[in-house]
């Protein structure tokens, strides 16, 4: 993941999108409140959150479909919406790809993609020529004469993408564009979308509730809970250093392990030896590497463990509770004195259900927010 502008450098050009204190309400209920968000030029930001967290609402306000209750939105440095004025959608430098495709039933693929060119006053013949070039680029030139009813879901969304690209905007908004597609097609199309977006050079905000999708295609990920921004960072940041248990569970499988810490640890530093040991486990000689977002005192601490931070084989005892073979790897769940641990190992299963196994911890993460009695 490259191309991310360094937020600490001053004097850089205006960001592609910036929201300050953004509040969006349906009637008296604020769906998004006091949100600050920035997307650099050429950057792809994923808005990751569960259904109903406000992703679509934020995109609607950015596109100009919804008014802003307070705060402001700037696109390319220009204020496009605040509590008093809203710039109409057609006057914002924004292209949108919709979750439900939003293709017009009475227009074929070619005229759909030509539509944004026509709106800019380009003649029909030239608009269609340019639209044909985009369909060619997307590999669907053969579908030019088809209407939405004659297209599959994936084809429809490619046409939707083509329409957005024809807008030649400096910011694209993707509202869960692959949510209605089946898994195989979803993986392929999301990479296609990311690639075409990257080549266009435009910035983008990509709303999704699919963690793997967000981590795979974004330069930066913003975690959204009930209209609030919980965390922002690179995909590796949010995966390896989630701010709390909720963020950890949103960004992948996360187990909680209870550790005994022999000495105080400062935030940012990494524990050396003597390291933490799983609580209640005698003779666990190998101590995991511990990183933390806050100072922690010696004694008992709860930490987060990703499945790929745990290995089968080691001195800590456990018992296999579930096994799921997934082809390229196998997922295990272990019952251990330190807690229930999810573990991922390459290849087919090597331990059977109910079998006692030894395991070891490579590393753990103690988030900023202490983990409660979960």
């Amino acid at each position, binding site marked *: 993941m490259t191309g991310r502008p360094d937020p600490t450098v001053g004097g850089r050009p205006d960001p592609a999108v910036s929201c300050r204190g953004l509040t969006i309400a349906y009637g008296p209920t604020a769906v998004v409140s006091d949100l600050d968000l920035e997307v650099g030029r050429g950057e792809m930001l994923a808005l990751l959150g569960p259904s109903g967290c406000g992703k679509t609402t934020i995109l*609607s306000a950015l596109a*100009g479909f919804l008014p802003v209750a307070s705060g402001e939105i700037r696109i390319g440095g220009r204020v496009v919406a605040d509590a008093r004025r809203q710039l*109409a959608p057609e006057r914002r430098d924004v292209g949108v790809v919709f979750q439900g495709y939003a293709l017009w039933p009475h227009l074929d693929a070619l005229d759909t993609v030509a539509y944004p060119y026509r709106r800019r006053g380009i003649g029909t013949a030239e608009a269609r020529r340019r639209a044909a070039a985009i369909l060619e680029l997307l590999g669907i030139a053969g579908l030019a004469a088809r209407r939405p009813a004659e297209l599959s879901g994936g084809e429809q969304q490619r046409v939707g993408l083509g329409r957005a690209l024809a807008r030649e905007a400096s910011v694209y908004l993707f509202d869960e564009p692959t949510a209605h597609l089946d898994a195989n097609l979803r993986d392929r199309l999301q990479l296609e979308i990311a690639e075409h977006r990257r080549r266009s050079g435009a910035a983008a905000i990509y709303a999704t509730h699919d963690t793997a999708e967000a981590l795979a295609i974004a330069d930066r990920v913003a975690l959204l809970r009930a209209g609030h921004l919980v965390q922002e960072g690179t995909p590796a940041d949010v995966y390896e250093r989630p701010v709390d248990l909720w963020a950890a569970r949103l960004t992948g499988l996360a187990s909680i392990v209870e550790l005994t810490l022999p000495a105080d640890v400062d935030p940012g530093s990494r524990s050396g030896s003597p390291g933490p040991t799983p609580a209640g486990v005698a003779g666990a000689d190998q101590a995991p590497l511990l990183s933390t977002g806050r100072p922690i005192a010696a004694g008992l601490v709860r930490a987060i463990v990703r499945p790929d931070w745990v290995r089968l084989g080691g001195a800590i005892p456990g018992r296999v509770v579930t096994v799921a073979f997934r082809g390229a790897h196998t997922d295990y769940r272990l019952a251990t004195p330190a807690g229930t641990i999810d573990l991922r190992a390459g290849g087919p299963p090597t331990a059977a259900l109910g079998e006692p196994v030894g395991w070891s911890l490579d590393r753990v993460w103690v988030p900023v927010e202490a983990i409660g009695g979960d």
Partner: protein
Amino acid sequence: MAESSSLRRVAWLAAAGLAAVIIGWPVARLFGVALERGIGTLIETLAGPQATVAIWNSLWTGGSIAFLAVTGGTAAALLTERSTLPGRRWLRAGLLLPLLVPPFVTAFGWARAFGPRGLTDQLLGLTLPGIYGPLGIVVVLTVAAMPLAYLIVAGALASRVEPDLERAARASGATRFEALRTITLPLLRPALLSALVVVFVYAINAFGVPAVLGTPAGFATITTRLYQDLALSADPAAFVRATTMAASLVVVALVVVGSSDALFVGRGAARTALPAGAGLARSRGVVAVALGAAIALTTVLPLVALVLAALTRATGLQPVPANWTLDNFAAALDGRFLGGLAHSIVLALAAATVTLLLGALAVAAGRRRSRILGTAITLGFAVPGSALAVAVLLAYGGWLRDTLAIILVAYVAKFWALGHRQLAGSVERLPGDQVRASRASGAGALDAFRSVVVPALRPSIIAAWLVVFVFALHELTMSSLLYGPGNATLAVIVLNVQQLGDPTITAAMAVLLVGVVALAAIPLAIAGFGREPTTRPGGGAS
């Protein structure tokens, strides 16, 4: 499934037989009588001066009404369904209000409000010139028919034009107006066509309004001509003319309706209105007030004028409290009125119940087999009431003349489609898996029907019953041709009193009639019309 398919066959045979008796035979008889003197006589009759003028008047007023009502209804639908007007809920209810008022009562109301010696004349010295005559007919029927156009277009906006389609246009660089022109209107085209057809048929079918506003000015339409020829004339030539014109009315209606489904496109769709977004923000209040004022002027003021006329001691007196009295109501509530009320309620109860049962029978016949049946049922609805009344009279007048039964046959022929479509629509929307899940959970066929199907259909059963009840309660066109001595319906009695020329008593009766209809319609309003759409905030994933 052999058992259920033989049940379906029985249902189909029964429904088809009843359709033939109630709709098929009368219409066939009408054409038989119209044609029995040969094509030459038919053409001669139609080319006669009285028929020609009436047909021409019906066609041009009908066309104007269709154009105006659909234009107005579309504009209103776009405003209430595609913007965030304040008080949308009230505006919607106001736009549907004319449905509750029998059109001929609206005509009284307009005459009392804007006519000579009407409310605006008394208060401001202003009258609407030409209220008696074609202008008044066009204006009042446009007001009365606008809710039909509004409902069809608003339904199509909800079901055929998802807000995202318009948003996609805006996000592609289209202005509000360009999005309307290139996306919304093309997608609405079938609904607009359907609305034009429905309103046109409604307008050429209308009898009460031309009777109230046209006849005094000597302006005849097909329906008032038919009434003159049939109800007021003993001349055999007039009877021939009546049957011929009734048959031609059927032909006009069928040609216009074209396909049977044109009448029902876009009905019964759920509202999914979301605020269409930025823009119009500053003028929202102004637009809402303007729309509210239009509703007040065209719908509420005439009703107010009617109430004031009913309360005022004598026509021509100022409508101030000093001149108020309840004597008109006391005079209106005489034996005739109460008898009419009883007839209307009995007829409406019977029509609603029979219609619902016949609708259920047609639905039970199954969808595949019932294409012809559905067309026949829709035919009954599409045939203008005047023509249908003549047809029923020709078919069954011999032994049912002057009974309530013959009126009931006409009501059922006319309203069967309402019950059928409503039920068929919700049966189609009922997912088959729900019934299968019930069977797979151990329910027998009857048990599954009782525990899964009936609860799901209950709202539409109630709505279908109520709609027919309300329509039957203020039906005038057919009743005025079919009633006999001693069994006039309420609407007929009110119209007759008006034609005898007692304005204050007429006003009092009309107010009571509206009150009765409104009372019956309250459950209907609660059941759905004014309901606020459920807007789901944000979170597009589903």
